[in-house]
């Protein structure tokens, strides 16, 4: 077992590559999914019925599908329409679109809990449409949704492990390749698990920190 960890340590650059890929993929997917989720949440809350209903169908469908199946749809299905991605890009696109639906749903939940007076006051001050959304609705919604966004980020990190199956060189993939070359399954995968654990700890600490900051601003 010690030998296994020594071999994994000797190939730490490979593990580190995987970790960086996982972090980079997850963070960019989270940022993009968040932006897209804001737009989708606005569509869900829209008073234009057809828009709200089609957004609802989109979000509900996404929430029924396993991430791996969706990643396959992007990686194998989209080329049927002439859209081709490298595995890395396919992974990023799949992570982004998939999680945008979840982000939209949790932003919508925070939005429905928003007191009516706040929006009415915004109207009274002459805010309407996009400026109302950006200046009055979005800030308190985001502050209220921070813990859930943090949970979703952890979910994104975990989902990114599925991308090993479409050969994205993320953390699990690198651990797999070290184990396949040197047959050190325990050390390689335990190292990967501990790195995932560390990542989630960092996310949780960051969420707590941002939450405190938001509390202080209120």
């Amino acid at each position, binding site marked *: 077992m010690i030998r296994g960890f020594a071999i994994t340590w000797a190939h730490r650059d490979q593990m580190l590559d995987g970790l960086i890929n996982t972090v980079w993929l997850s963070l960019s997917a989270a940022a993009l999914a968040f932006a897209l989720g804001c737009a989708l949440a606005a569509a869900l809350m829209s008073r234009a019925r057809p828009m709200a209903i089609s957004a609802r169908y989109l979000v509900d469908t996404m929430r029924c599908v396993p991430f791996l*199946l969706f990643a396959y749809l992007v990686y194998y299905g989209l080329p049927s329409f002439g859209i081709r991605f490298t595995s890395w890009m396919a992974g990023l696109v799949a992570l982004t679109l998939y999680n945008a639906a979840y982000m939209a749903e949790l932003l919508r939940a925070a939005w429905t809990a928003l007191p009516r007076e706040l929006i009415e006051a915004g109207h009274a001050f002459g805010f309407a449409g996009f400026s109302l959304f950006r200046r009055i609705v979005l800030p308190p919604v985001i502050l209220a949704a921070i813990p859930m966004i943090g949970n979703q980020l952890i979910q994104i990190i975990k989902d990114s492990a599925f991308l090993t199956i479409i050969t994205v060189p993320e953390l699990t993939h690198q651990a797999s390749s070290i184990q396949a070359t040197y047959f050190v399954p325990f050390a390689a995968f335990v190292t990967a698990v501990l790195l995932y*654990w560390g990542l989630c700890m960092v996310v949780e600490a960051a969420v707590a920190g941002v939450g405190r900051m938001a509390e202080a601003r209120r």
Partner: protein
Amino acid sequence: MSLLDFLAILQGAGATVGLSLSGIALGVPLGLALALARWGRVPIVAPIVATYVSVMRATPAVTLALLIFFALPNAGIEMDPVPTAILTLTLNTAAFNCEIWRAALLDFPRDQFDASVAFGMGSRLRFLRIILPQIARGCLPALVNEMSLLIKASPAVAVLGIVDATRAAVRVGAETYRPLPPLLVALVIYAIIVAVFIVAQRSFERNRSAAAASPAPLAATA
């Protein structure tokens, strides 16, 4: 896509449902046991459970499946893919179920607890007759939610070579050179499976609120 291909995906869906149900059947009680260990502050066990939950919450199902499948034979335990898959899903969902059960246990009203002590109930009877029925009902929505998350995590067992709904769809796509139709069929199948869970939970809740609305038999004797 022929009828045979469709049946192949359906067979994969059978594997998905079977593995997920096994994971649920083992993971829900295991989660309860873990939650009780933490709730009762069992020495040594409670901190281990806390660490286990924290690590599991962060571990992707794919990584866990690979770890179990490749590392256990090293420790002299040979396991076939199917038991490995069930073990993976169980260990994964048990951690989340533990947190659900624990939240309900921590929320349990103190006065009811004290009342059952005053009636001279032993801890076993108290748990089975007073605590469990109430927290089980309260936990149901969260447990069902976790079940649907488990179903969505279940394609992870594909790395063990098990042909579940997702893998079956990809195979059909690879054989027919038209990947889109089988993947969309699989998508519909997953939507149906998740919907069945949600509908079952809703009808259970409706029955419960109907039962709560009817007058309690005790009131008549007063």
